[in-house]
């Protein structure tokens, strides 16, 4: 069986869900004839026609709001942000209108907002963002950010079937770099479940998205050079977050490093650290530390971007600190 990329996993998820449910339809900029800026919707216009693959005006607030209205009526809209950086243009619609709809008015709003996120790609300040933390603080939304092709597919299918709005972050660095054999059949990955992607006993790294792969690289190096066996926990879903899996790994290794690509201040690592403190402080043998990006708008030039973003060597250095505390 041929291996499937992260990007193709996403395309397959949309295709299969559109075949399964006539209420599923797509909206976004340049997603039709062009197939999307990254080709995530390639071939879907030809297959499903203009009424189910809708090219929109450049108006994120407009089509996210329209998705909400359609969702109230029983449709299952999946909207693409050409780059996830532009989701800020729909921030009001998502946080004020969509996230509150079920609670304040008993209006269901089953919809997915998905798009290419993240750096390491020389995209500069407006094509590299990781804005997931901006939405973690909004009750009513769900947030998913997969690191593997199978998870990307299985989680997107679950997101489309979810009864609430799911923000689906896709890491563009992983789009064509990650390949794996895709599970057969109707492959669903439940939202809200983390996954141990490398077992270990001396130290846990809690992470998600592209830094899962950097953490795995660091774990390999630490095993070889230091004999430290690192457990890597891929959160996969950020809201809801799998607290049980976090507590389990803390109880197992007693030392935790939290890693993400987003900037450090106000980032999700702070929330994870607070959860560990509240849930299982007595199981810790060392302070929880964070590895994340510097608090800088992401610069374009390779030496600048590489300096600002967390690298494998940073994770190795921080892990040694936590392990030897």
């Amino acid at each position, binding site marked *: 069986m041929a291996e499937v990329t992260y990007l193709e996993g996403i395309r397959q998820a949309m295709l299969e869900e559109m075949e399964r449910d006539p209420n599923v339809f797509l909206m976004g900029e340049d997603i039709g004839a062009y197939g999307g800026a990254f080709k995530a919707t390639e071939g879907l216009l030809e297959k499903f026609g203009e009424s189910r693959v809708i090219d929109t005006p450049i108006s994120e607030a*407009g089509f996210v709001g329209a998705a909400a209205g359609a969702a109230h009526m029983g449709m299952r809209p999946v909207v693409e942000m050409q780059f996830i950086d532009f989701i800020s243009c729909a921030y009001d619609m998502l946080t004020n209108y969509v996230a509150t709809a079920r609670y304040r008015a008993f209006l*269901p709003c089953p919809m997915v907002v998905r798009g290419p996120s993240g750096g390491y790609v020389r995209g500069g300040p407006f094509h590299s963002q990781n804005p997931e933390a901006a939405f973690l603080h909004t009750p009513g939304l769900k947030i998913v950010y997969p690191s593997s092709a199978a998870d990307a597919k299985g989680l997107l299918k679950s997101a489309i079937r979810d009864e609430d709005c799911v923000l689906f972050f896709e890491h563009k660095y992983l789009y064509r770099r990650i390949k794996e054999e895709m599970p057969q059949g109707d492959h669903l990955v439940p939202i809200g479940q983390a996954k141990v992607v490398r077992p270990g006993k001396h130290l846990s790294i809690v992470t998600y998205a592209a830094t899962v792969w950097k953490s795995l690289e660091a774990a390999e190096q630490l095993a070889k050079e230091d004999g430290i066996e690192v457990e890597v926990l891929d959160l996969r879903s950020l809201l809801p977050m799998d607290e049980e899996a976090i507590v389990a790994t803390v109880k197992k290794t007693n030392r935790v490093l939290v890693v993400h690509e987003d900037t450090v201040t106000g980032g999700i690592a702070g929330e994870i650290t607070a959860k560990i403190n509240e849930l299982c402080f007595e199981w810790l043998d060392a302070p929880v530390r964070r590895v994340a990006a510097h608090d800088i708008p992401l610069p374009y030039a390779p030496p600048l971007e590489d300096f600002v973003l967390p690298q494998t060597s940073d994770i190795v250095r921080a892990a040694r600190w936590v392990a030897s505390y």
Partner: protein
Amino acid sequence: MTPTSSPAKAAKTPPAGLSRDQLLELYYWMRLTRTLEERLVALYRQTKVVGGLFRSLGQEADAVGSAFALDKQAGDILSPLIRNLGSMLVRGATPVEVLKQYMAKGDSPTRGRELNIHFGGPERGFIGQISHLGDMVPVMAGVTLTFKLRKEKKVGLVYVGDGATSTGAFHEGLNFAAVQQCPLVCIVENNKYAYSTPTRKMTAAKRFMDKAIGYGIPGVEADGNDVLAVYEVTKAAVERARQGGGPTLVELHTFRRKGHAEHDNQSYVKPGEIEEWAEKNDPLDRSIKTLTTDYGFALDQLTAIDAKVVAEVDAATDEAEKSGPPEPRDALKGIYADPAEAEVLWYREGVRSAVDKNERAQGWGTYNG
């Protein structure tokens, strides 16, 4: 609900296919709106209204006439603004619901979660607004996009004020609806003030209807205090949308005779302006005059409606006052379909904390497995 009327001699034929009974029905909804709001003012002064109170005094015709142009049987849907209590009543909201909602009762339409007239659902023919002005335009674009995709002959109607036309959401939503040719009617209620800001500080355009040109859709206008003119202009736009003609922008000229909310003393309004509108251009006074002069109704037919409305509002008030406040823990329910209820924070549970749950049984030390 209204007394059947027999045509009097030399009475004019009602416009736009309205029956004589429907003329009285329009009067009934306007009177109900005004009387219900007057009752809310009394309750507000008795501190029984928990939050702010928003009046539509002087704008009853624009709300009622436009909502009346939609078809209940067809499944048309509107999204009201804060001055559209009348629109919601026409579509089936009841006085007791509105009273309970304002008084934050546990069995109010939103179980105490939302304020004033922020409630509704597609199945009821009206979808509740949020406070962020203009946001309902994209939402209603999506509701009507669904009508189009499903090939249903339904129409949506969304209200914005003169102020909301300045928002990005208004522009993005109307542009989207125009491009997609959604069956959506957008009504701009030009009531001359957005809170304290006059229209000349809101736009350099001479007329709001002219904004339609930029979207490639028709723009029309009407006297918003003439309920029949409002009905006629809206009905034409609704039927155009129903036949696949796409959106229309309708500007209704009216005047907000009360402040933004009850606390607002309107110090920014030119002296005499409110009084002039009240004396010469009150939609209910004008309706009474038209019904008695042009359509041959007797005044006591209208006063009978007034009395019926007072009785209805009295009964609704008695019923609404009987209800109690919501149970505090109901606050945790229904933010998501799954989980259906949020967890209560540990310090509300008593002394047993989340830390206790994961207390380390074997004491301090490193992992030994």
